[in-house]
């Protein structure tokens, strides 16, 4: 926009940088490059939001977290389909039946699938990659797994079907969180 006073009704034209679409293109859109923002070619407005939450654990996950604090993995069993579910729930999503049957499953299992992450949650490159896996836990129904990290193993040595075991934080360090298990390591 031009500087200075503009008379009422005066055509002030199109501001610097706001150009019509490229000639010959019927598709609208004006691309902004990082350098355009750096150079001040276009204006932008910065804002940061800060929200704070306190999440309730719910009934089933609450029991799961209590179990983790005690160094054990809690599942629940549906009395209709007989599946042992991990993570546990108070309902079966397939039978839509109520569940109140709690069981311990083992802290050992099998790698269902894995990946190797070179970026963090904000897509920033990490100095060393983390290995992520879905681990099917022994004692749960076939195919029941949880997502967690793998440790004490090189990425190239991981394979689907690898036997693994949870590495727990010490009793004093455990606080009832998924991170009470530091990672799973090869068995």
């Amino acid at each position, binding site marked *: 926009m031009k500087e200075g006073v503009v008379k009422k009704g005066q055509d002030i034209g199109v501001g610097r940088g706001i150009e019509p679409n490229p000639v010959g293109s019927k598709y609208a859109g004006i691309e902004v490059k990082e350098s355009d923002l750096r150079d001040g070619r276009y204006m932008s407005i910065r804002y940061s939001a800060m929200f704070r939450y306190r999440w309730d654990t719910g009934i089933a996950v609450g029991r799961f977290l209590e179990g983790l604090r005690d160094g054990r993995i809690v599942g629940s069993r549906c009395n209709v389909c007989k599946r042992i*579910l991990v993570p546990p729930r108070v309902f079966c999503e397939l039978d839509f039946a109520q569940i109140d049957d709690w069981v311990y499953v083992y802290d050992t299992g099998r790698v269902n699938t894995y990946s190797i992450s070179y970026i963090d949650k904000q897509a920033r490159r990490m100095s060393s990659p983390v290995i992520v896996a879905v681990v099917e836990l022994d004692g749960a129904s076939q195919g029941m797994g949880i997502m967690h990290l793998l440790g004490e193993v090189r990425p190239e040595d991981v394979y689907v079907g690898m036997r693994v075991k949870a590495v727990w934080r010490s009793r004093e360090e455990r606080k009832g969180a998924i991170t009470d298990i530091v990672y799973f390591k090869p068995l």
Partner: protein
Amino acid sequence: MVIKRKVAVVGAGMTLFRRRMLETGKELCFEAASMALESAGISMRDVDAVVLGSAPDAFDGVHMKGEYLLDGAGGVGKPYTRVFVGGGTGVFAPIAGWWHVASGLFDTCLVVCEEKMSSLHPHPQYAFWGIFDHTLERPLGVNLLWIFALEMRRYMHVYGISEEEIAHVAVKNKRNALDHPCAQLAAKITVEDVMRSEPIVWPIKRLDSSPPSDGAAAVVLASEDTARRICKEPVWIDGVGWSIDSAYWTDRELAYPAYLAEAARMAYRMAGIEEPRREIDVAEVYDPFSYKELHHLEGLGLADKGKAAEMTVAGVTARDGDMPVNPSGGLLGVGNPIAAAGMMKVCEVFWQLSGNAGKRQVKKDVRTGLAQAWGDLMQFSSVIIMRS
């Protein structure tokens, strides 16, 4: 099932897809909607209802995006609603538009899909963090690519597919996109380029991935009477389907998208399609990552389980192949402004079936086309079957 009336696509429009655009979401909506209306030869006064599709609010940092985008999408003073099923939104929004008209409630419906992912810094990836379970998944430091890489690895393992085979999808789609005037990442690349590109979350590499984008796309839907009156080449929506699996994604077999097979069955049944492989002439399937195109072709029954890679390597899915898949260039080539990207696929099928796809027009005669999208926590799919 009683469907009261046939519904046609009578116009389509889209903006450029770019990493960052000057226009606000509202302005992008206005541009895409205006182009769709112009191509349908009608004005906003002729539109009875408006459906808006847009994905997570957190990209824009604007809560209740439906209301925020309303004015640019043309919904003022009309029955207006926003639908949202994550990445599946772009094909689900026109399904919602379809039932607005098929039910007999409205003669015309404008469907607008928009995404502006660039607002979030340093990277829109951070918004996806908020879709994970706050107690069991977020504390692990999860990002969205973790789970897609887990799915890709599982798919490779179960069917014995290599990274190189999967890379052919990226090569094909980015090349197809060279002919798309809105494309963000069109390129001539080789399988070796894909394999050499940096791993982001292995086995997903940089060139296996679609980019974050800004953009909008729109279609105008009309009832049969209206369509025949205003449009020389209406393209009929003959089948729609959608289905969702459990959000307990670690409890599912990731190698095969059973929910998509269910959505496809619904759409095929409605369209009277018994042999999809013979009857579907062109398909725009959701390809945010190269393996997803293969995964989806199998879920749609357009390839045998574990065989879509072979088909791709053999050139069957090329633009001049027997089963052209993503002749637009897909999300990998044109870009991935999430809801707008799915809608771009519906636009492409409309342009292909009406013979207006220009340089992207597939070689063979096309009468029946399919558009599909995928979303939420790797658990939802939406499918549309269209016929000229």
